[in-house]
């Protein structure tokens, strides 16, 4: 991009894809905005202008406040488990061990399992209070089995989602770990830093950028977690495990209220942007070289 001419040409060449992308984004967003101001229920053929009514109903819905809290807990909990667990696993996998290749593939494999399938496996094989493995283990120790989805529904979903995302975090962090020069670690060792201090002063700062990437990418996906909630708790008991995405689904498809669901969708977009701004402020500076 040296000369003015080449910059102009670059702009012209890029224009079609930029325009397509804009339309691609703008049309659904505009439609959602439009619907969110309509009285539009699938059970009622008459569509009328509603003003802010949809927003008013959605925001005053008793489930709304709780769904926001649940969404943030879900994102925060999964991030905490995957980042801490990911660093730990990456450190382990970075050690030269026999059968390293196979172990790495095993660690990555949860990422290849579809979310509903993973959730069903956890629900029926691991966490089921009657015949789940956790229940059997509890019984073996003479304990009362936990009814995971009734007693700690949100925590159960956090566990399942964290299990799915742990490989992603591990993989990114492992790659970053392997890019740390051996000489730097040796220099720190010669400088008298023991293993813990090498981790704090050398390894962790080196991983800062990778951790940022993990947090940003995972947050985008975690804000929209849906399948795991649907197949395990269905948002219940009560609204205990309903997040924002699930609340929008409930409004749209269980009450056939397209207008209300659209209002919820717009609110979800706004929330996602607030989280994004907050995150970029908090950790985004790690991405600057």
């Amino acid at each position, binding site marked *: 991009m040296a000369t003015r001419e080449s910059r102009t040409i670059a702009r012209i060449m890029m224009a079609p894809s930029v325009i397509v992308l804009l339309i691609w984004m703008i049309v659904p967003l505009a439609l959602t905005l439009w619907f969110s101001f309509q009285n539009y229920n699938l059970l009622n053929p008459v569509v009328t202008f509603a003003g802010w009514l949809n927003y008013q109903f959605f925001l005053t819905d008793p489930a709304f406040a709780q769904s926001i809290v649940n969404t943030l807990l879900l994102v925060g909990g999964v991030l905490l488990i995957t980042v801490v667990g990911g660093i730990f696993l990456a450190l382990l996998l970075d050690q030269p061990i026999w059968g390293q290749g196979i172990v790495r593939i095993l660690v990555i494999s949860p990422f290849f399992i579809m979310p509903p399938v993973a959730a069903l496996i956890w629900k029926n094989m691991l966490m089921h209070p009657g015949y789940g493995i956790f229940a059997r283990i509890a019984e073996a120790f003479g304990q009362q089995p936990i009814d995971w989805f009734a007693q700690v529904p949100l925590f159960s979903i956090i566990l399942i989602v964290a299990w799915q995302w742990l490989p992603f975090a591990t993989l990114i962090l492992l790659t970053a770990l392997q890019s740390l020069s051996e000489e730097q670690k040796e220099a720190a060792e010669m400088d*008298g830093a023991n293993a813990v201090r090498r981790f704090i002063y050398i390894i962790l700062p080196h991983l800062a950028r990778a951790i940022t990437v993990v947090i940003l990418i995972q947050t985008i996906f975690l804000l929209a977690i849906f399948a795991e909630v649907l197949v395990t708790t269905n948002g219940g008991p009560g609204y205990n495990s309903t997040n924002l995405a699930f609340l929008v689904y409930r409004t749209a498809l269980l009450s056939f209220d397209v207008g209300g669901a659209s209002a919820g969708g717009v609110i979800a977009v706004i929330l996602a942007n607030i989280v994004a701004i907050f995150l970029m402020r908090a950790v985004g500076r790690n991405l600057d070289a």
Partner: protein
Amino acid sequence: MGSITLEHVNKSFGGHQVIPDASLEIEDGAFVVFVGPSGCGKSTLLRLIAGLEDTTSGIIRLDGEDVTQRGPAHRGLAMVFQSYALYPHMTVRQNIAFPLKMANTDKATTERKVDDAARVLNLTDYLDRKPRQLSGGQRQRVAIGRAIVRQPKAFLFDEPLSNLDAALRVNMRIEITELHQHLKTTMVYVTHDQVEAMTMADKIVVLNAGRIEQYGTPMELYRTPANKFVAGFIGSPRMNFLEGAHAEKYRAATIGVRPEHLRISRESGDWHGRVGVVEHLGSDTFLHVHMEGVGLQTVRTEGEKEFVPGDTVWLSPDPSRIYRFDQSGLALR
């Protein structure tokens, strides 16, 4: 204090023996250079002294004390790596202070030592920069600064100048030598460059395939090389070697003559040849002379003498400066 002793040190990686049997005595305060071709085990030997590699067998002593089983942090040595290995997320000040911080030194002492080191190394204006904002020579100095604040028993350098350009290399060579004269601490310095070895060292260790070929002062190695390998490695341009009839005249399997000990003449001499490439360096001129049945010989003359490629010339070795070697390459005296 910092004398280093190696006793029959052996190092293998897997089944591959890199250092067969090295014994060496480095006196306190000496500047010792390990020199040898790439891959001959110089770095391995240095890392054994540092404690970054375990010996397969043998004993390493520091000041007479057996430290073979001690980790690198507990040997009291400091190392400067080829890549400098600075901590990229720390400022120059934090980099230099890092070993002190690890030793839980108090703030005031740390500050004083860092400032002292920065002054010695001309880094005072750069203390708040990150390593990536420094030039190669400055990074090198930060790495040295990080080493000197600890006041180690000895410094270990692994090819510290090989990432610098030629002019800077000459400067840093002098700076490191001056630093040694100033600190008087033992320094062990690894390089593949025999010029660095000759100019900096009190004593040179010439390594070849993990074996110590000779250990001595630069001029000892130049005057009385123990074998053909040392004779060929020390000195620039390289020593000329002649075999067959030429060598038999001197009752040796091979004879060696340094380029500076060959006299060149247009009229008469011992050996006849034809001038090939002529390299003018200004003060000196290197002539590459093709000798019938022997091959290329290098001659060094002063710069003013004018020879052109294709000239027929006569070469005569200085008879007192002919090195004789037996069948196995050992020097005959």
